[in-house]
């Protein structure tokens, strides 16, 4: 490995971000325009005559040629102007700050649950291969991975919210907590700690459990199976045999030598799974009335709010591309075999 080749690789990887994002933005732009109807018709149609609708469409530029609209759209993005939503005059920056924070909170805890549950069960299943523990673990992994998030969410609501009455079934916090909590970061969990408001924190944690579990378990299935396979493979490696031959106790061989190495590929997948997690977040947020960015995306899509949908998609794209670039960087540093 030479410094030059690594630098070239990193620069190439960074340069590729631009066409990737551009292709995605173009697709979003075209798909929205291909879908019939526009935000003004959605808002005013069935209420006021076309003679009122047309001038408003003209004022907002919806009657301009598609190419002109596309040019305006790209130019605005280049200038960092994501605009204001058409349907409710909300700056995109506010959506990203406010709803993005709610999604961040949910995905962070979902990822935490996914890692803890997935990796732990995977380690145990791999270590005790073909035992009932392994079979149970594999079955669990397949079931949670295959179950759609909204179904898992509905089941969780029914069992823990309705039947047992242990946990709230919707929202980021109870109405009073939401109303009284001072927002500093818009991440309620952090805001409650910031203010030392432990009562609110407890309320927020209770509201987090079901959505985070629902979203986290889906990804946990992936981690579980990957960890299990890596543990099995690692336990067969020569250096494990060598460690055993040196008389190192089995517990140390498994926990210190095998598990540590088995987790390296899992770290890469954790980063890449963020995209899956964001996709799942849209459905989970809808199910639990979680006011995240996915929840907003659905709302704006229904109203054909071009500005809002495009802006939110840019955020999704940048997050996914950003994380994949970071993962690639880490891999490039860690694994000298990775090069273009």
């Amino acid at each position, binding site marked *: 490995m030479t410094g030059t080749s690594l630098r070239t690789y990193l620069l190439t990887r960074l340069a590729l971000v631009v066409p990737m994002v551009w292709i995605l933005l173009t697709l979003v732009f075209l798909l929205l325009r291909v*879908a019939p109807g526009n935000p003004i018709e959605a808002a005013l149609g069935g209420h006021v*005559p076309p003679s*009122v609708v047309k001038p408003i469409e003209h004022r907002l530029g919806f009657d301009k040629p598609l190419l002109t609209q596309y040019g305006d759209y790209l130019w605005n993005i280049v200038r960092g102007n994501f605009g204001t939503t058409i349907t*409710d005059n909300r700056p995109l920056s*506010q959506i990203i700050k406010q709803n993005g924070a709610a999604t961040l909170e949910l995905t962070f805890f979902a990822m935490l649950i996914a890692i803890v549950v997935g990796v732990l069960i995977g380690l145990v299943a791999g270590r005790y291969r073909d035992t009932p523990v392994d079979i149970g673990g594999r079955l669990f992994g397949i079931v949670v991975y295959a179950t759609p998030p909204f179904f898992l969410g509905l089941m969780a609501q029914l069992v823990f919210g309705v039947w047992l009455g242990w946990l*709230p079934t919707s929202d980021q916090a109870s109405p*009073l907590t939401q109303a009284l909590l001072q927002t500093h970061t818009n991440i309620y969990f952090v805001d409650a700690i910031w203010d030392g408001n432990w*009562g609110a924190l407890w309320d927020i944690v209770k509201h987090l459990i079901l959505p985070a579990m629902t979203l986290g378990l889906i990804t946990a299935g992936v981690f579980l199976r990957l960890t299990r396979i890596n543990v099995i493979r690692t336990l067969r490696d020569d250096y494990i045999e060598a460690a055993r031959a040196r008389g190192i106790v089995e517990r140390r061989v498994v926990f210190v030598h095998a598990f540590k190495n088995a987790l390296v590929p899992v770290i890469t997948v954790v980063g890449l799974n963020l995209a899956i997690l964001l996709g799942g977040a849209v459905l989970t947020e*809808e*199910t639990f009335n979680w006011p995240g960015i996915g929840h907003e995306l659905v709302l704006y899509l229904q109203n054909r709010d071009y500005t809002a949908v495009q802006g939110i998609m840019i955020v999704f794209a940048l997050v996914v591309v950003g994380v994949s670039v970071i993962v690639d960087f880490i891999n490039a540093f860690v694994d000298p075999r990775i090069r273009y």
Partner: protein
Amino acid sequence: MGKTRKRWLLLAVAVLAVAAAAGTAYGGGKASKAGKILVDGTTGTVVNIDPANEYDYDSFTVDLNIFQGLYGFPKGAKLQPVLATGCSHSPNLKTWTCKLRHGVKFSNGDPMTSADVKYSFDRVQKIKGDQGIYTLLSDLKSTSTSGAYTVVFHLIHPFSVWPYILSTNAGYVVDKNTFPADKILANTDTAHMIGTGPYVLTKFTPSQQAVFTPNKNYWGAAPKNGGLIINYFSKSSTMKLALQQGSLDMAFQTFTPTELAAMGKQKSLVVHSGHGVVIRYLVFNVKRPPFNNINVRRAIAYLMPRQTIASRVYHGTVEPLYSMVPQGLPSAIPAYKTLYGASPNLAKAKAAMKAAKVKTPLKITIWWTPSHYGDASADEYAEIQRALNASGLFKVTLKSAEWAQYSGALGKQYGAFQLGWFPDYPDADDYTVSFYQTNSFFSNGYSSKQMTSLIAKERGAKTSALRYSYLKKMQLLGAKDLPTIPYWQGNMIAVSRSNVKGIDSTLDAAYYMRFWLISK
């Protein structure tokens, strides 16, 4: 290693203990302090709170707590002066002079004067917001003041229902010192969202929550609760769970008929129902074959399964409707019942089709939209299809499109299609002129000289009795010409926990959710 682990364990136990203790203290403390705060849930979406660009019911429900007009419906469905003490008109009904109530203050303490009223009307006309509320003031030429407490409205045409326009949010009075003259105030700018209503909007988190506190400068009776929180839900099923769990005190707008039926059986919940003004109707493009044939339209009118839709699809939460004007409003008459009967009449439908001279079963396409008018729309149109097909006179194909597409097409592309109506103001004028005028919003090609003449006479009528007589004639003519067929009117429904009081006092044909009358 062992010591470190123990230390972490102790720390975790300590944090949990503190959190649990604080949780109990927080829950108890806040409950007593905020016990009178009413928490409502809704599946609605707030578009714009600024009255100059608010033209949807969910935003209106928010505005109703903060703003007031010169006229309104403070109690019941009868129009009453609110910020005005009364208005008088010139003989030609083109100039309206309103006297303002003295001593009214905005929530920030600013006095409300005629300058604020003029400012508010000028602002709506200047901004011309993209939600289209300014169209309600299309007949307003100018607004002038005469002293601090008199406002004069100069209209383009005689307009007998002008006081009703003053009750809409196009006529809500805003503080000229806090609202910009030429642009819409952002929903989250609560510091400047100043009105004269019973509450002050203190916090608004889009698509999550609106928080209101009682207005200390309110000129009327103080709200019966200590404040109001409206929580927004994307799905009614989630809202139902929150209500069942006690996170909400009440929920208004909108549960599915099935959910309402289920909640009606629960002891901890009460389903409240009152007169409603929301209607559903079928529209024909009277220029497009085969619906350009009046006898085809008549046959469909004879077969409309109103009772089946009301009972089977909506479980009795709606009532069969026999006029474009819902029952409960002055001048409403069951015109369609008079002409086509209370229930389907196959013999008369057959006679109409014979007169139409078309080959039966006639293939027709009816359009409907799946989500905009609620999930029950699919079943509603399945019933209509079943009824028409069962007659042997029609072979109906149902087609649907999402609202964003559907609302742009209507009469321009469809021959027969579903629509719903929520009034701009609860008066028969809004249920007739909107549908029967030439070039109506749904572009169905209907134009009648007789109807146009009746509309002009109604708008120029100097007494209510005369106006109502014209409105009755318009309903009968509409039923005869059949550009539309109304089939149900919805009730105003709210669901509450059993300890909530006062909801029934606000369920009337005005369709105003007056939260300030509700306590717990």
